[in-house]
Each structure stands twice: as C-alpha cells, then as structure tokens.
C-alpha cells in the first residue's frame, strides 16, 4: 500500500510503541437486558491506521467504542487497548489509560457549565503540573486546528452543532492521544459541516498519524476518507490521484446482528461479493 503524497514520519509516540496494535478485540460479547448487542467481535486496529465502523442503527457501534476504553465491561472476551487489558483493569487503573486515548462523543458531550476554553483544557487542568500560560497556548493551538479560536470564551450552548463537534475534537486531541475514537462525528450535521469535520479527521490521520476508530452510518464519510489526503502545503484536504484512491491507512469493519460481517481495507470492501455488503455500499 503506497502512502499518500504528504504523509510525514511517524510520531515519536507511535515509534516507541512495543505493541503492534493500538486496539485488539478478541471474541467480545455484551448483552443489555438479555439482548445480545455484540457477539464474538474480533478485530485489530494497527498503529497509525483508521478503521471505519459501519452498521445499521442499534448494531452496537457506539457500544464498541465505549468497550474499548472500559466505559462498559464486556460479558466475555478480551480487549487490549494500547497493550493493556481493559477487561481486567479496575476503574481507577483505567483513568490512566484513558488519558492516552481521545474520544469524541455522538452529541459532543461538552460540559455545559464550562466555557470552551475550560472544556478543551479540562484534561490538562485535571492532570495538573502544566503552567497556565502553557495551557492557554495549547488550547489556542488546538482550537486553531479546528478553526474555532474565536469561541474561547463561549459556552457550549452558544455554539452550533458542528462547532460543538469541532470543540469536542479539540478537547480530544489536546493531549496528543495515541488513539482517537470518534462516535458518529458527522451525525445530524449538514453536508458542508460534515465535510469540515471529516477534513479535520483526515488531517489528524495524515498529519499526526493517530490511530482511530470512527463510527458512522454515513457512507459518504467513509468514501471521502478513502479517497482524500491532507495536504500540509495547501492546508487543505485534497483528492488522491486516481491510481492511489483507497491507498491510505484506512480499513473498514461492518457489523451485522452483533457480529463482524466484514473486516478489511478499501479494495477488499470494493470487491466484496457479499450481497448485504454490496447493497449496503451501493
């Protein structure tokens, strides 16, 4: 698989990782009130790769993200996140691991009593040990990344849906996490705003090489991520040349009835003969 034109050297964090996979699911199952939501889920997310999780509503996509960082416990199976077995860790131990993972929730989940500045800097304040001036610089830097520096003093309620998602992305990336989890980051947004969000995700993938799990039910998002790269010279998302489309560190996981129906890269997805997949992607 050839790299897109502007990809840069792997980050230091990635280079020093002993484990080859950022996230590993092994035969994971979970049920809510006797209804099996996920049943025997197995997949791997290598470092530096983004995996798009597709599936109909209620197929357990968001549950899968929450399981990855121990917000939910599986009934059976094993989950390794950044080399650590989250299924056997206590809640107190998980807090340290979660500081290395960023998550963007479906409805942003910004703290509505805090300003954008405090929301974005939340993790830095909690960790302590960072000077106020440095916090200010880092908050401005990530807000500039999502092009929302002017919202610093605003409350979440004053922002539009798209702006809230971008602030949520800024909050997730401020500590430069090793893995990012996006839960329907474009859900309920208009096409223009959705494209802006996907551009930010591609920027994070191609510039910082962050591993990511991205839950979506919008095929358009998956299509854009597979066919575009982020050009640092123009600071814009660009279409890959025809021969290189799909040649980005991207894979797909399709869930159906609580099981993995498909796990593979763009080419494999495009050439899948499965009737359900063909209907799903057509």
């Amino acid at each position, binding site marked *: 698989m050839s790299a897109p034109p502007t990809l840069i050297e792997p980050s230091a964090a990635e280079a020093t990782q002993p484990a080859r996979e950022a996230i590993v699911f092994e035969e994971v199952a979970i049920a809510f009130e006797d209804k099996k939501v996920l049943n025997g889920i197995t997949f791997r997310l290598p470092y530096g790769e983004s995996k798009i999780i597709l599936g109909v509503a209620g197929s357990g996509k968001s549950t899968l993200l*929450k399981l990855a*960082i121990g*917000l939910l416990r599986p009934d059976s199976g094993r989950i390794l996140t950044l080399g650590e077995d989250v299924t056997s860790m206590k*809640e*107190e131990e998980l*807090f*340290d691991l*979660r*500081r290395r*993972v960023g*998550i963007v*929730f*479906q*409805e942003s*989940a*910004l*703290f*509505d009593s805090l300003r954008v500045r405090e929301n974005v800097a*939340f*993790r830095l304040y*909690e*960790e*302590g040990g960072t000077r106020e001036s440095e916090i200010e610089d880092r908050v401005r830097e990530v807000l500039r990344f999502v092009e929302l520096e002017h919202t610093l003093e605003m409350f979440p309620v004053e922002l539009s849906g798209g702006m809230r998602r971008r602030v949520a992305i800024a*909050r997730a990336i401020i500590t430069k996490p090793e893995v990012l989890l996006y839960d329907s980051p474009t859900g309920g947004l208009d096409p223009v705003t959705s494209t802006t969000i996907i551009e930010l995700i591609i920027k994070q993938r191609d510039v910082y090489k962050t591993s990511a799990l991205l839950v979506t039910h919008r095929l358009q998002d998956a299509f854009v991520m597979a066919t575009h790269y982020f050009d640092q010279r123009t600071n814009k998302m660009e279409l890959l040349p025809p021969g290189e489309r799909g040649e980005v560190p991207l894979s797909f996981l399709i869930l159906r009835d609580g099981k993995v129906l498909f796990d593979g890269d763009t080419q494999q997805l495009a050439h899948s003969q499965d009737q359900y997949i063909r209907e799903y992607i057509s």
Partner: protein
Amino acid sequence: MELISPGEFAKEKVQSVQDYVLLAVRSVANLFRSPRYFGDAVQQADIIGVGSLPIVLAACFFTGAALALNTAKSLGRFGALTLIGQLVSIGIVTELGPVLAALVVAGRNASGMASELGSMIVTEQIDAMRALGTDPVKKLVTPRVISTVLMMFFLTILGDFLGLLGGNVIATVVLGLDSRQYWSSAWQALEFSDVFTGLTKPLVFGFIISTIGCYYGLSTKGGTQGVGRSTTEAVMWAMILIIAVDVFVTRVLMVILGS
C-alpha cells in the same frame, strides 16, 4: 409500567441499596485521596448554603412564631406563659430547626443535584468525564457532600436563631411579654445535650441529602423523563430518610449523652 416478579423487585431494591452505600462510602473515602476539588466544594457551598439561606431563614422564623402561638395557648391555662421562651428554644434547637432546614435544603438541593447529574448522564457528560480520566465521584459527589454537610451545620445555627426570633416577636408583640425575659429563659433552658443534638443532626442530614441527590442523579436511566423521575425520587427519599433517621439519631444521642 412493566410488571416484574416480586423476586426481581426485591433483587433490584437490594442492588439499589448496595449501590447507594458504595457511593456514600466512596464519597467519604475520596476525602483522603488526591486530587481534591476544593474550588468545586466552595462553588457548591455557595449554591447550597447561600442559595438556601433565605428560604431556610423564612421557614424557621415562621415556624418559631407558630410554635410560640400554639404553646402560648397551653401555657396560658396554667399561668406559665413566661416559660414560652424555654419551650420554643428546646423545640427549635433540638428538633424543628435541624429538621426544617434539612427538609428545605432537601427540596431545593437534592432535586438540584439529581437533575444536574441526571442531565449529565443523559447527555454523556459523565461518560466524557470518565473518558477524560476523571473520577466523577471524586469530582462531582465528594465536593457536594462536603459542602452540604458544612452548610447544613451553619444554616441550622442561623435557622435556630431565626426560629427563636420568630417566637420572640410573638411573645412580645402578641402576648405582651418582656423580650429580655424571653431570651433569658430561652437561653437558660438549653443544656449541652440539647445543643449537641441540635448540631449533630444537620451533619447527618446534610450527608443524607447530598448522597441521595447524587445517587439518584448518577443512576438516571432514559432521557429527560428519567431525569424528572430521578429528581422526584431523590427529594422523596431524602425527606423520608431525614424524618426516619431523625428518630434514630435522637434516640442514639439520648443514650450516649444520658439525657
């Protein structure tokens, strides 16, 4: 409403009690673990203490006045109207002051805590907090417990004073008694055990209000309807527990203090 078997119902209730006890224990244990959220505790103290002050003072003042009016009727029959200060002070300081203040704070703040934390649950803010590496019990529950316990103590002292003042207004304006005599008899009637009982209860009630409010908030299920349900149940259970525990605390303190 879905029907469940008596066994399942009992199991659910036992599970709820267990979860509540665990939350209450963790909220106290967090006092000895860092990080400690002093700023959040101060902010909560302002919301709970300063915010509840007018209504607690008003409730205690008028209750003190009503108590004076009611006792005056009985005391008058025996020609012992001058004892009114004693009756009002013992009634207010040992019982009515702490319980009234607690019921008012429960109505105002247990509901506030349950609805705030419940809203945070349904909008995934609690999950976000956990995902950002912060313990919600440490950050949200412990500061509320500390603030409510402390503020209940001071609110009760002020409430007691306003209750006595209400009694004084009735004694002087309506019954024509001497104000100095009222205060002197009110003061002399109080023993150490009365004051100790009256100031221990608010600490227990403050703990009940905050832990019940937070428990129902954090165990919210469903959407906005769930938040409403949690809020109502928090107030109901906080009030029931305050009244029931009051009897228990009164008896225990009587035994301990030998009164």
